[in-house]
């Protein structure tokens, strides 16, 4: 064994574990002892990672942590991907947190905005996923990590099941820097299906009294897809997918892209695009992809996380999905994000607000949601060197000058001109510029995707090819041209729009061969969740809130 000259960090870990003493039997802690164990292993000033992923949550450990008060634990530097649970918010209300670095706060966006207003939310920064994971290895290495796994064996090896998500990215930097890894598991068994985290990286394990919280985030009921969304999907298929021959891609989680997935086996087939586009996907196992998979469109899918109800289907389609030897679904958020950054031709997703320069944001004055992974995928990675047909074609349109990359990733924003409640999507200035938000974020305006990175905006009015614009003024005119009846859209000038249309920078549905009257829900491969179950030959088990049979 190599002995370090200074091993203060290791000694400190030994002290912490010694303090736990008989509260644990080996690595195993009884549920009722968890609060006291947490009090003894966490020290003031610690960087503490509480695993809260996009989908799975170390909710039992979070709830136990929230039973403690400021006198037990204080000055915590909290690092976590997603602020999701009421227990997370509780830690701030109790004043236990001195700084937080995170990525996303979707479900608690309103609570976070309230905490910011009350000055009880000391943000270091809001990150994208891979930024935060990167910093785990640089200056935000956790001293203690509280994580969630599906199963542990008696030695302490962990099995993560379909939702691997962030766990390896949290455990590795912690375990290899003398930090403490504490895992909650759904069950302790003699033999786990496969080892995701080896036992020697795990210090404590508790079998939680209830299974970890797992959010079904990516289930989109085809019944809720509107005909406007079908129209936009048709326009995108012809004007972008077909035009650039997009081979590899990421889809957002909205209904717009769900419509595209359900059009592939029908409209896409009719256009003769099968085998020509959409072969390799970096997405979660979206139930709405089942018809495209069943009709042979999809060659591979790599995922950031799992999706509730897709376990049996993905096991049966291990030729498409990544699975363990046991057939169990495998996901990995940092690797998925990396794949989405460098490996794909196109990112396409929706947004709540887009300004006249093409910057987008999901922040409003009363809701701070953060970023998640969209900016990693919705950006131009200047480190990319490998070409693809789509990358070169989009690059040529963008007319790169000397000293820039010859290619471009397609970064597509697909939005209706109005959100629910007739709130315009297109605005002159983003709500994200709100001074109190910028101040809390140390001067950074929380922009999801920068206009410079966006290549196309698709609305029900048509397509604006921002990459082909030659000036800021031209880009603004192109955005106004597809912004419909929003105040931004009403400022468009007919002559400018016609000029852009003549140059192919703005394309209306008819310019890409789509007749709006054709846009019908009957084009979707299925109109409801039950249809997806049928397409899966009964292998998809939708969550109960989607079942009406």
């Amino acid at each position: 064994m190599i002995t370090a000259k200074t091993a203060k960090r290791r000694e400190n870990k030994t002290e912490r574990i010694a303090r736990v003493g008989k509260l644990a039997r080996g690595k195993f802690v009884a549920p009722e002892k968890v609060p006291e164990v947490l009090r003894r292993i966490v020290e003031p000033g610690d960087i503490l990672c509480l695993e809260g992923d996009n989908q799975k949550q170390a909710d039992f450990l979070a709830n136990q942590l929230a039973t403690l008060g400021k006198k037990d634990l204080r000055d915590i530097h909290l690092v976590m991907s997603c602020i999701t649970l009421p227990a997370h918010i509780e830690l701030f209300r109790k004043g236990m947190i001195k700084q937080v670095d995170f990525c996303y706060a979707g479900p608690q966006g309103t609570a976070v905005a309230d905490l910011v207003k009350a000055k009880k939310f000391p943000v270091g920064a809001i990150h994208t996923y891979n930024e935060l994971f990167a910093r785990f290895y640089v200056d935000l290495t956790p001293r203690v990590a509280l994580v969630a796994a599906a199963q542990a064996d008696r030695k302490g090896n962990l099995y993560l099941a379909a939702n691997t998500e962030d766990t390896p990215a949290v455990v590795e930097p912690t375990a290899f820097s003398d930090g403490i890894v504490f895992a909650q598991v759904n069950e302790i068994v003699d033999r786990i299906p496969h080892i995701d985290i080896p036992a020697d990286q795990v210090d404590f394990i508790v079998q939680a009294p209830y299974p970890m919280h797992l959010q079904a985030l990516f289930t989109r009921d085809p019944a809720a897809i509107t005909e406007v969304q079908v129209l936009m999907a048709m326009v995108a298929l012809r004007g972008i997918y077909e035009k650039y021959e997009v081979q590899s891609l990421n889809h957002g989680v909205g209904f717009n892209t769900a419509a595209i997935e359900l059009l592939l086996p029908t409209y896409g087939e009719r256009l003769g695009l099968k085998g020509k586009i959409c072969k390799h996907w970096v997405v979660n196992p979206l139930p709405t992809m089942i018809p495209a998979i069943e009709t042979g469109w999809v060659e591979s899918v790599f995922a950031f996380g799992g999706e509730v109800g897709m376990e049996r289907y993905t096991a049966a389609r291990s030729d498409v999905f990544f699975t363990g030897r046991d057939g169990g679904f495998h996901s990995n958020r940092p690797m998925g994000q990396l794949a989405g950054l460098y490996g794909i031709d196109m990112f396409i997703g929706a947004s709540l607000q887009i300004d006249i320069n093409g910057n987008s944001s999901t922040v409003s004055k009363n809701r701070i949601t953060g970023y998640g992974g969209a900016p990693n995928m919705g950006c131009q990675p200047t480190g990319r060197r490998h070409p693809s047909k789509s990358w070169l074609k989009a690059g040529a349109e963008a007319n790169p000058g000397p000293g820039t990359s010859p290619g471009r990733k397609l970064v597509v924003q697909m939005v209706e001109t109005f959100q629910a409640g007739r709130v315009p999507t297109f605005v002159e200035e983003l709500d994200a510029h709100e001074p109190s938000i910028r101040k809390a974020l140390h001067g950074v305006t929380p922009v999801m995707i920068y206009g410079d990175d966006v290549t196309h905006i698709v609305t029900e009015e048509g397509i604006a090819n921002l990459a082909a614009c030659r000036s800021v003024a031209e880009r603004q005119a192109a955005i106004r041209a597809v912004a419909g009846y929003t105040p931004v859209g009403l400022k468009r000038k007919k002559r400018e729009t016609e000029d852009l249309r003549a140059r192919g920078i703005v394309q209306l549905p008819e310019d890409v061969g789509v007749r709006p009257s054709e846009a019908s829900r009957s084009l979707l491969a299925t109109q409801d969740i039950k249809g997806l179950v049928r397409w899966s030959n009964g292998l998809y088990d939708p969550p109960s809130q989607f079942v009406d049979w």
Partner: protein
Amino acid sequence: MTGAILFHEQTARQRIASLVDLHSFAELLPPPERLTSPYLAQLGIPVSFDDGVVIGRARIGGKKIYLAAQVGQFVGGAVGEIHGAKLTGLFKAAARDKVPCVLIVESGGVRLHEGSSGEIAIAETMRAIFECRALKVPTIAVIATDIGAYGGIGILSTCCDFRVMTEHGRLGISGPIVIEKWMGKKAYDSANRALVWKTSGGKTKYLLGDADALVHDTADAVRDGISKFLGKSSAVSLASIKARQKELEKRLKKFGATSEPDAVWKGMGVRDIEAASLASGPEFAALAKRGK
């Protein structure tokens, strides 16, 4: 696996157009006549020029019918004075002319803004339906959407000779939220969609004999379902009512204590619950030995 718009997603006018023989529909009291609810106008609520129901003459397979389709998008298809009067008149005309009458139902019952006149109108329409039945003029209700047939329209639907349903259709008197409010969430969880459809959905109603045909969710299937009943009628006699009453008593004894909808399905002859849950229309009917 794609084709026409599903029946339950169509509007009332689309449903009519896709059901009847080409160009055979002649609307009575059409929107240009602007018969609107005086009560909604007084309350400052938007009105509709058809008051939420489209009525007229048409042909199906060459046979003359009277036809009404309720508009679920307009105050949930609820029945007010004008809406109700249009229905009453249509069934009276059917009795007078001895022409079968079909009602495409999509209504939660009486419109609360004009409750009394709505109630009276529904009662008068039921009387007109029984006039038809006494004359052996077929009356058929089609229930094919999740708005379904509830309240007074639930009762009215069961007064017709026959009911054609799809798995999306729901039939009852009190709606799920009302039941939950009165009985408690423990007794009936209205958010449990599977429970709601297994108690009031088309399949269960077919098993229990409240629906006479269970068809696929397409206009073609609904049209076929209607056609089969156009030449028939079911007599209302003391004997038939007594027989039905006996049947209901027997069923109450058998299922009165059960809280598990699957047990009712099993008791009504469904062997493979999972397969039956996924099946629709005739496939479901084939899996269930109704009434055994």
